[in-house]
């Protein structure tokens, strides 16, 4: 129970926020399972090309724990299995026949959830393919059911630019959320529910059996990494799980109906998106389906937000945990000497967090349609304190980023690498004048660390 004020951080004023209207999309003709969404996990295929699938048919099982499966969100058939080098599974594409034929896992009400016991509940969620919604830190792996985490952090806020508003996603789903929360409480006794300061959504504010914390301030105030670091930082050997409030409501929906949810709400946002808003889309839907067939010429589609997300093509599909798709313009122009956006220019049309551009003086209230330009050359880190300026975490980021290429595992642990996820430092990548991709460095560092553990 705490009220936290995040001071370090920054809200990038991006143009193209999704208006709060909820509409239905036509069913996606194809959906996909993308194992890349789950780092450090290997999967065993349970189906072959051409197999018929129902809503809820297991498609792949995690090799680390074969009880963890990914279930098909559509009825139809296995369209294509894409493999890469050394037969690495890249994606399983499923064809949707639109029949909606579903496997019945049995409906669970509040009483059954309360009496079933932890193991039965875990098994039930795993069978229904809802388990992969839980993310485990360090490393952002799938949650390991055999080892109780220190705590579960439920994130009911979003501060990333153009991110999907959790409270809007939950609007009609208070009962599902409460049921899902009850189930998770049976599995993990310590739950921290992190909400926006000023949040008035009853099911969140008055949630029973959990510690409710409020957070205020600029991004990354709404990231689980920030919440964990401020409430109960991860120590060596400990694990915590994270999930978003909307995902909890999907668990609740599964429990109540006994069927794997076919649909989820996706926010479509970004300055290059023609039709913005919130849409009920097929889970794992294709980008082209979600953006209503808008051509992606000179436009980058991102599953996630422009500050942290995965670039996708029109035929690619969103991941299990993605709550938004953002379209932003690809940079196509080059600006010439003394031009406004050139490094010698005044910078009325150049967005920066630094007081080095005219835009800081005159355009404070403006929203920006930022493109994908790198806006500079890659250099060694010159300004040594930028990362700390943009990160509220108690981690010496600059020292850590410099230590990663050395690969000294003990040192990386000491500096707190296992407290981080790439997402937590996305803002540092954004702000770095040397154009160092801090998020990517952290990802590399975690890979080094994971190999040793």
């Amino acid at each position, binding site marked *: 129970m705490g009220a936290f004020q995040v001071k370090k951080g920054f809200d990038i004023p991006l143009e193209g926020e999704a208006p709060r209207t909820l509409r239905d999309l036509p069913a996606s003709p194809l959906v996909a399972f993308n194992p890349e969404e789950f780092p450090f996990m290997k999967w065993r295929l349970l189906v072959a090309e051409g197999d018929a699938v129902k809503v809820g048919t297991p498609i792949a099982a995690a090799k680390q724990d074969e009880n963890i499966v990914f279930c098909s969100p559509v009825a139809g058939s296995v369209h294509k299995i894409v493999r890469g080098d050394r037969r690495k599974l890249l994606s399983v594409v499923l064809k949707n026949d639109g029949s909606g034929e579903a496997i019945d896992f049995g409906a669970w009400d509040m009483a059954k959830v309360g009496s079933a016991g932890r193991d039965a509940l875990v098994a039930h969620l795993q069978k229904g393919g809802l388990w992969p919604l839980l993310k485990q830190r360090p490393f952002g792996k799938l949650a390991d059911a055999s080892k109780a985490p220190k705590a579960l952090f439920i994130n009911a806020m979003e501060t990333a630019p153009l991110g999907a508003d959790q409270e809007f996603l939950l609007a009609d789903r208070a009962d599902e959320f409460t049921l899902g929360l009850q189930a998770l409480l049976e599995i993990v006794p310590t739950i921290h529910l992190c909400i926006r300061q000023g949040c008035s959504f009853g099911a969140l504010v008055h949630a029973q059996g959990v510690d409710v914390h409020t957070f205020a301030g600029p991004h990354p105030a709404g990231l689980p990494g920030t919440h964990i670091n401020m409430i109960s930082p991860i120590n060596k050997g400990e694990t915590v799980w994270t999930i978003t409030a909307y995902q909890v409501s999907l668990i609740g929906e599964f429990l109540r109906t006994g069927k794997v949810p076919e649909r989820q709400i996706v926010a479509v946002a970004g300055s290059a998106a023609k039709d913005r808003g919130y849409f009920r889309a097929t889970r794992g839907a294709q980008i082209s389906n979600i953006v209503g067939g808008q051509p992606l010429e000179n436009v980058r589609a991102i599953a996630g937000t422009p500050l942290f997300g995965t670039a996708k093509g029109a035929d690619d599909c969103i991941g299990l945990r993605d709550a938004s798709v953002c379209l932003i313009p690809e940079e196509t122009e080059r600006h010439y000497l003394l031009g406004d956006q050139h490094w010698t220019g005044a910078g009325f049309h150049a967005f920066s967090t630094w007081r080095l551009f005219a835009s800081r003086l005159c355009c404070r209230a403006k929203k920006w349609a930022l493109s994908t330009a790198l806006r500079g050359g890659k250099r060694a880190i010159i300004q040594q304190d930028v990362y700390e300026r943009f990160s509220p975490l*108690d981690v010496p980021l600059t020292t850590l980023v410099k230590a990663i290429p050395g690969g000294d595992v003990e040192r990386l642990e000491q500096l707190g690498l296992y407290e981080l996820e790439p997402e937590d430092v996305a803002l540092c990548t954004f702000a770095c004048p040397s154009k160092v991709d801090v998020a990517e460095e952290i990802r590399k560092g975690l890979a080094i660390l994971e190999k040793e553990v």
Partner: protein
Amino acid sequence: MKNPFSAFGTLFDKLDEMSKGKKVMATTVDAFDTFIRTPKTRTTGSVHLRDALDSKRMMSTVILALAPVALFSLWNTGFQKLSALQNVPGALKSGFALLGTEPTFLNCVLHGLWQFVPVMAVTYAVGLGIEFVVAAVRGHEVNEGFLVSGMLIPLTLPPDIPLWMVAVGTAFGVIFGKEVFGGTGMNFLNPALTARAFIFFSYPGAISGDTVWKAVDASKDALVDGFSGATPLAIAAATPAGQCPVAALEQAGFTLKSMFLGVMPGSMGETSTLLCLVGAAILVATGVASARIMVSAVVGVLAAGGLLNLLAGDASPAYWHLPAYWHLVMGGFAFGAVFMATDPVSAAATGIGKIVYGFMIGVLVVVIRVLNPAFPEGAMLAILLMNVFAPLIDHFVVQANVRRRLRRAQ
């Protein structure tokens, strides 16, 4: 309206095409290409947006902050030269003889340019040459760091420095102060100060004023003393024990005000405290340099100077009696604290580290000036010494964080 420089676009597209696979040409073409127009690179990875600031704009901001100091130094260098030549008829070499020895504004600036431009040209030619070669060998992009170093080096040198020394010193500063460690961002010493220190210790005669203004041997004593602020510092050091040197300084024309304004002899850029403050304002307002370092350096000077004032007795050297705030306007302290100590690469990086680092620079400036008979000026040595210690200071700050993490786990 079409940008007139866009005509270069096609040229560079062709050059890009031609330089494919040729390492040396590619880095050089890229350096000029990205100078004329923004790079065509797009973001990759998970973060799709970037801030508009790049290292080019950051470095040019430092040059902008140096501009008032540099422009003033042009006038001042000429003014000092002409003032010194007033009583030496026929001392001027042919070309300038036509202009006369009247220290008019134009005349001063012309004489200043005559002294400053060759030094700067040699510095940039040598330094940038090395940068381009090293970038080509490493296959990196050419770094902008030297644009600042190349401006700093001439400003820390006396106007009459032989150009070959400038070349050797610059080469040493760039190669051993920076490139051997991996280039800008990897160095632990400020390359410009490394260059100056090299010249200072290798050719002490040239930098401390023995050979200034060869053209006018007869009046050597009255002339510009090339040593970094040595004149007022030397007067302070030479005052009899037990007296306050202020009177002696003022008698010699070095009042607090004149030294603050900087109309006095010295290394080209470091005489005017006022214009260093203008530069500091630009650097702090834009967030490019750390105000913490500057402020704590000033506090360090006042603390050390103040302590000496307190301890000073009748028998103690005169320098001990000099009011602490006089140190702020004397010699190269202001220039060093604003432009050299704040170099983000060689300074301490952590918040607390910056305070310790700045404070210690201030203390050491006074200690070297007052307590060390060998070196009348301490700014350069104090900053270089603290450059060496900066990683250690940061290490302690980071270790405190590490210990906090370990304690938490128990």
